[in-house]
């Protein structure tokens, strides 16, 4: 297999404590090795005047699966004027906020990413998510099945049966080839089956007689009972509602007292995704009624050590929102009166999809932008704060480099607020005006790879250039010593000079030259035999599902032809 030696670059690797030093980086047989361990015929990549990091790791994006494909198929306008023909090894691509799977892969490659986690997989439709991931080249992917409204989970947790919940979760991860536990609007999406919602963590779920708080605590406990690589991945109740930060604080506090278990090296028991949407003060979306509550939230997050989060920063684009939070999307469609798709899934979950325009000349969109940016700037521990746009909910995937620009440059933020019609009002309602922090490249490496890999339980593979890890290296054409224009950040980080993934060169001189060797990650968790759970599964399939139990599981052959299976033993 090929050997690579990346020379003369400014290297940023927080795991190794390398902060912009010029060190050589080497890959052999698909793995990182000491620079002295590659031979003389290694391909030398001259990274002089450029930035070198481990490949990026995305902890939360909606890039494959049923609701993503709804977004594509019901929005022909999203492809207008942006289709690209195939070229070399690349196939044709299209789509702005919801790109085709090919374009998703190329976008990630050009941004220097090697791994991405699809954030919500409806178990019954898992095959669909896997078909799309299989057809997405280059990047490694995994997907989180959703659990927070699943009838088994609701019934077990109502009686606080953690062991049964855990056994069921392990079974479902095997059946769906899933990566971990996603929890979206716990209880609220089941209530949505009747057109209702759970707006606080204490609202009782109709019929099931359990509260979101019980579901959240129960799923944390089940996750740690199993010792999964990743923790419970949380999208809380009342997303997007002004004044919701109190509910968010209550949600986060449910994690108090829990410690991570297992062998995967993470420190957190709860990951709160797209925290921006959950950090609102005030009581309305108007400039008079809205307030950022990022400080309140971050004061708490900074004070504990068992919580991680990603930002979900608004990019001020036209985009497509999509979430398993069915009642939220219904609500959103009533606010903007655009087309609305809803898709409830028997016994398990739901999804809603609505196009959305975050207008730069509206107060609220820019205020939302500010809230997300504030969270990242206020984070004391960059190893627990990850930069996302909850793509495409707060903004399209390809905007990551623009978000990095805002975080790395006060000048860029000021320019945006200057330009925005209600910039001053946003400064008044939010904390953005008080913050002059600029994220360093060292911090960026934590917030986009090292920290994410650790939180996913994958720090033994990704996030660093340490010998023994996967041979995933990116070179960005960015010179930290000379670059002074913030636009260079956006330009450079969206156009990697080189990407090596799994020891294979994917991007060469800015061009995609290989479709790589894509793998699907899933977690095979062994548990003790559990007759009760087996019985319950059979009963539910006989009575309530519309597919048979034998037709539920995702087979390897068609759906995950190149799997990477993480074994977990929870039998002890």
């Amino acid at each position: 297999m090929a050997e690579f030696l990346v020379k003369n670059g400014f290297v940023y690797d927080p795991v190794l404590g390398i902060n912009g030093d010029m060190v050589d980086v080497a890959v052999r047989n698909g793995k990182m090795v000491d620079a002295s361990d590659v031979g003389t015929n290694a391909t030398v990549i001259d990274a002089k005047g450029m930035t070198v990091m481990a490949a990026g790791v995305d902890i939360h994006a909606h890039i494959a699966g049923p609701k993503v494909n709804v977004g594509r198929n019901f929005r022909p306008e999203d492809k207008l004027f942006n289709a690209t023909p195939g070229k070399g090894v690349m196939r044709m691509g299209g789509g702005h906020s919801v790109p085709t799977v090919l374009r998703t892969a190329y976008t990630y490659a050009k941004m220097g990413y090697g791994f991405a986690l699809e954030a919500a997989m409806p178990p019954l439709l898992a095959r669909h998510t896997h078909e799309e991931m299989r057809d997405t080249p280059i990047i490694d992917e995994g997907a989180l099945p959703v659990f927070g409204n699943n009838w088994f989970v609701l019934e077990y947790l109502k009686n606080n049966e953690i062991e049964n919940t855990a056994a069921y979760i392990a079974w479902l991860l095997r059946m769906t080839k899933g990566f971990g536990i996603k929890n979206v609007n716990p209880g609220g999406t089941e209530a949505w089956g009747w057109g209702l919602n759970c707006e606080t963590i204490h609202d009782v779920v109709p019929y099931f007689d359990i509260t979101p708080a019980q579901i959240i605590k129960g799923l944390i406990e089940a996750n740690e009972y199993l010792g999964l690589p990743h923790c419970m991945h949380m999208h809380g109740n009342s997303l997007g509602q002004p004044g919701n930060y109190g509910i968010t604080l209550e949600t986060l506090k449910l994690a108090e007292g829990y410690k991570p278990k297992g062998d995967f090296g993470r420190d957190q028991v709860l990951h709160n995704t797209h925290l921006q949407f959950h950090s609102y003060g005030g009581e309305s979306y108007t400039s008079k009624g809205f307030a950022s509550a990022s400080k309140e939230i971050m004061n708490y997050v900074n004070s504990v050590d068992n919580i991680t989060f990603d930002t979900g920063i608004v990019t001020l684009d036209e985009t497509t929102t999509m979430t398993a939070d069915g009642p939220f999307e219904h609500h959103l469609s009533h606010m903007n009166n655009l087309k609305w798709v809803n898709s409830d899934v028997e016994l398990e979950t739901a999804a809603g999809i609505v196009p959305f325009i975050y207008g730069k000349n509206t107060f609220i969109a820019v205020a939302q932008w500010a809230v997300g940016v504030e969270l990242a700037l206020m984070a004391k521990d960059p190893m627990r704060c990850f930069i996302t746009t909850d793509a495409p909910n707060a903004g399209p995937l390809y905007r990551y480099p623009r978000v990095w620009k805002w975080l790395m440059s006060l000048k860029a933020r000021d320019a945006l607020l200057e330009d925005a019609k209600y910039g001053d009002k946003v400064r008044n309602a939010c904390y953005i005006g008080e913050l002059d922090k600029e994220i360093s490249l060292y911090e960026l490496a934590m917030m986009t790879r090292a920290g994410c890999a650790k939180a996913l339980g994958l720090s033994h593979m990704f996030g660093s250039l340490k010998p023994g890890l996967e041979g995933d290296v990116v070179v960005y054409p960015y010179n930290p010593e000379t670059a002074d224009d913030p636009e260079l950040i956006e330009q450079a980080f969206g156009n990697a000079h080189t990407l090596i993934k799994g020891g294979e060169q994917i991007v060469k001189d800015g061009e995609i030259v290989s479709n790589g060797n894509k793998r699907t990650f899933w977690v095979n968790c062994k548990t003790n035999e559990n007759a009760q759970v087996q019985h319950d599964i059979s009963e539910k399939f006989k009575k309530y599902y519309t597919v048979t139990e034998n037709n539920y599981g995702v087979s390897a052959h068609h759906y995950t032809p190149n799997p990477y299976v993480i074994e977990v033993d929870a039998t002890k």
Partner: protein
Amino acid sequence: MSKIVTDVVCPFCGTLCDDLEVSLSDDGKEILEVYNACAIGAAKFLHAQASDRITRPRRRQEDGTWKDISYDEAVDYTAKMFAESKKPLMYGWSSTNCEAQGVGSELGEVVGAVMDNTATVCHGSTLIAVQDVGVPGCTLGEIKNRADRVVFWGCNPAHAHPRHMSRYSIFPRGFFTGKGAKSRKMVVVDPRCTDTAKTADIHLQLEQGRDYELLSAIRVAFRGEKLPDVVAGIPKEKIYEVADTLKEGRFSVIFFGMGVTHSLGKNHNIDIAIAVTRDLNDYTKAAIMPMRGHYNVTGSGQVWGWQFGFPFCVDLTRGFARYNPGETSANDLLMRDEVDSFFSLGSDPGAHFPNESVKKIANLPSVCIDPHITPTTAVCKVHVPVAFVGIEVGGCAYRMDNVPIETRKVVDPPEGMLTDEEFLKKVLDRVREIKEA
């Protein structure tokens, strides 16, 4: 003792029943009996066994008779046809698995084809309506477990989707619908007195082609506004009654079929049917679902969605994907003489397209991939029989509610026969060879 294969998936209609049991001869080679399927589903399995089945490709001679050719020759003919065409039309894609659809997409991209599926003569208008206004939907299990108001509008499941009512929509006892059919009110809207209509609690026998008016009137009734005495042939009292029935349900669902998608108004009928469903969600919970016909027409739209971004009428001829039904739809292209070769797989346009289009096909270089002899094979230059998906080869299919199910292989295909996917892969390889030469 015969062998029984369980959990078999029926590769016929969009109901995609997955509870079939098939008994095989001792040697596992012959299908003896099919249990749980409806008559059409069972017939599909048993027909696969027909003794006069064509098992090798055939090419039409000058004099109109068929001559057997090898698969390699068929691959070569197909690849050359594509290579020599400026604008090939690749049509069908609904009675095959997603694996074949995937390879077909790549082939279409390489040869610069227009790709269209059977939605173009079926639920294409639905797809357009969804692009206009979205769609509140759900999986069929939600209907089974929750729905207490079920509307069939312009569709006749008793004949077209025979097990739909017993598996999902009317008769099953679900979690919140323990009394089965007794927990549900059934409304049928159809100008004909169909067998489905005969079992309904309420049959609105509207005037042909007046669906838009009636749907509009229901929206008026929801709002408690005034209606004329009669709309679309239905007295206003009846309309208020149906509107109230739907509003008072805990979960209402509208299933609709070709009676609305292809009668006067087309996609506008679906727009407003969706608007009715949106309205209902302000009072209760409601969903709407197209009764998709072929067992995997839904999957075809999904595969093209993630590969190209559009569910049908995908024009790849310019090197990137374009979509413009009316311009890039199969029949419009054929009738306007805009395509110079024709490829059919997983459908029977010879039977379903207007005569005018079929005549055009007959004059083009053409290949038809189909296990059966069909009206399409009758007008094509080369006929390539293949293994039956869901019987002789497995693979993924999407039910009408977008639930993907992996179909099963029950028996081997006749010796030496290729599958859709295998044949397409060979053509793709051959096309690449020709292009590189």
